[in-house]
């Protein structure tokens, strides 16, 4: 098998640079496998994150050749167009970087405390667990969101600074769809997200890249409709 070059974005407290690693290509290996191989056989200082390595937890989002993916579920295939058998691996866009490919999730948690739509509600707002099977099935499709951050990375407008993480709209839509919350709570959630809805340009990249097949853009459309109908009534 011939060699490939994997170009990895490196960043530490002092500097950022692109490092090239040359490895012998093997088919049918995931990006996580390649990163582990680099770390354990070539350069133990390379920092990346992975937890379940089964596509369940959402810890290992990275950009492979410019596309935001989960490292553990994505097989590294050589780009056909690349003349030098080269792949690039970068951290997700739109997040503070702790080191190399690792996102600073502590800062994200702090920011979620400020901007989450569910936050102005009292805890335990779902005061009963009784609801119909159909209602719960709808919620399940939205609750599949792992908050991996791939939607954030693919969003072309979040870097402008006015928008918030697309996965927050998925959570907001899930909450207002829940039959167990009352209209006052619903209105509060809508008020919280309403200022951000208009920034979405409906490009649909978030939904196309989502590993769970959820579309934040579609959630935003539904939230806008809900805002409109609240304003009418």
């Amino acid at each position: 098998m011939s060699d490939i070059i994997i170009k990895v974005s490196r960043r530490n407290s002092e500097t950022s640079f692109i490092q090239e690693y040359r490895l012998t290509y093997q088919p049918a290996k995931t990006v996580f496998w390649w990163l582990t191989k680099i770390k354990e056989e070539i350069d133990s200082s390379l920092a990346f994150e992975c937890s379940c390595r089964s596509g369940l937890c959402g810890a290992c989002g990275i950009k492979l050749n410019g596309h935001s993916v989960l490292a553990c579920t994505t097989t590294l295939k050589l780009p056909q167009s690349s003349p030098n058998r080269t792949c690039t691996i970068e951290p997700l866009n739109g997040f503070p970087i702790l080191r190399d490919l690792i996102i600073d999730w502590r800062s994200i948690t702090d920011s979620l405390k400020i901007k989450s739509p569910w936050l102005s509600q009292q805890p335990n707002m779902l005061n009963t667990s009784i609801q119909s099977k159909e209602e719960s099935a709808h919620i399940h499709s939205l609750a599949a969101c792992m908050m991996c951050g791939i939607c954030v990375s693919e969003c072309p407008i979040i870097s402008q600074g006015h928008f918030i993480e697309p996965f927050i709209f998925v959570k907001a839509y899930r909450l207002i769809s829940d039959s167990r919350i009352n209209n006052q709570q619903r209105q509060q959630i809508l008020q919280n997200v309403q200022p951000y809805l208009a920034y979405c340009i409906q490009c649909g990249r978030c939904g196309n890249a989502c590993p769970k097949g959820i579309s934040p853009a579609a959630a935003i459309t539904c939230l806008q409709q809900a805002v409109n109908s609240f304003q009418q009534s």
Partner: protein
Amino acid sequence: MISFDVLIVGGGGAGMRAALEASKHSNLKVGIISKTSPLRSTTGCTGGGLNAVFNNSDDTDSFEKHAYDTITGGSFLGDQDAIDFFVKHSPDAITELAEFGAPFFLDSSGKISQRQGPGSSAPRTCWTLGHATAHALYDQLLYANVTELSMCNILELVVTDSAVHGVIAYDSLTGKLIPIAAKSIVIATGGYGRVYWSRTTTPLGCTGDGVAVCLNAGIPVKDPEFIQFHPSALVDSGVLISDAPRTEGAYLLNNRNERFMKNYAPEQMEKATRDLVAIAIEKEIEAGRGLGHELNSHVLLDLRHLDKNLLHGGRLSQTDYTAKTFALVDPLQSPLPIRPSCHFTMGGIDIVDYHTCATIIPGVFAAGECACLSIHGANRLGGNALPEVVVFGKVAGAAAALFALTAPQQYDFALDSALQKWQEKFKYISNKKSSIPLPEIRDRLAQTLWHNVGVIRDEQRLNKAIVEIDILQDRYTQTGIADTNHIGNTDFIHYAEIGNMLTIAKALTIGALNRRETRGSHFRSDYCNNDDTSFLKHTIITKEDNRYNISYRPVTMTKYLPVGVEKYV
């Protein structure tokens, strides 16, 4: 210095639930440190099944039945008073999760749907999405008055003369070794399945950090030899293939294309219990009838004859996805290479009072997979892990808060000197040119444990493992790290993790060597039956410097006496 009244170590289900409970006291300063974001903890990577008696699908289910299933599933090694407490508190804990927003699958009347799991005598398992328990608790954590420090690894629990001072941790974000003072501490760091490294289904972080720091601080571990092995994980990646394909009629084949289960369980064949199937597969591999080599040895799980609708949108859709994504195999075209893998660790930090989750050190509590109450005994019933996490996370958080309310302010010198020791250690290992790469020590440990302290154990193998672990411990002291950066130093984190795994591996092996019987997940080919007269008792292992001491403690039996000799393979 950072200081808290209550410090929670570990951001998974038990840790988050403990933090929520402690934070109900608004006058207490509560902090939580975790090695990864709470969303990526083991609770965020589960199958999503939780046992509780709700009688939604079966009027005849009862606390007694849930307790008895748990007791027999654990081969009578579980403490029956703790189990009784557990089953009675599980329904409220699950209702609370639903109220926190975890979406459960419902039946046609809108109540939580309950299905019968393996080893359960009634439909009792409630199902939610695998990551939903962690996300529901995380949403609540955002409301709560809790300081959350993720990307922060515990290195040492600082205890002097039976008094807890706090912990030394490595903060990835600032790159600093930090002392954290606390009046009370809840350890909730998860299991130690990663001692088998590639042969486990557990997340990468399950390196038993909390168990090891407790052992080092003088807190015993209980029953560390009890490891649950799941019969089927993909050989290369360790990703779990559930019991579902075998339930639906998949075959297990050796290298002669034989359905070898006919020699082990001629009636049940592939549908035999997890323990039995795991032992059968390992015996086939040992007899040279497996495929592949070393840790990649495996047998085949053949689904080719099954109805394709089962795989495409049916009950085996998840298996189909897993096979195609992680083994790049279409299960309708080729069989899957599988091997047993460590799935859960029943043993852990010795809890001396299940009402509080207290350890022998006042002010130190533990909950979740890192703790051993013991409710799982010698083997865990499917669906009992997640309710354990929320039931006892809450208990530990409440008790730690209560302790902190009356505890005096600690002195800091103990933390200062511990910090200094770690700073010197960091300097030493990052200047050291390592002759042995760290992953090599880790992989050799995994190989040693798998072959000698794995599914099949005997005296000779266990003695061999002790010798080998001592050699690896010695080599470990000669290693260093290549990464000299302070921030995000995953090399240093892994160094600490490997040290922790070596510490636990020794305790686990000593426990297994001295338990000269077969019970639950602990299979001794030289002592094939359970021996209630000599071994119906908990293993208690303590560590002083590098010396391990073993003793035993009686099992609490309130209602049910053991059934006598159980038949194993």
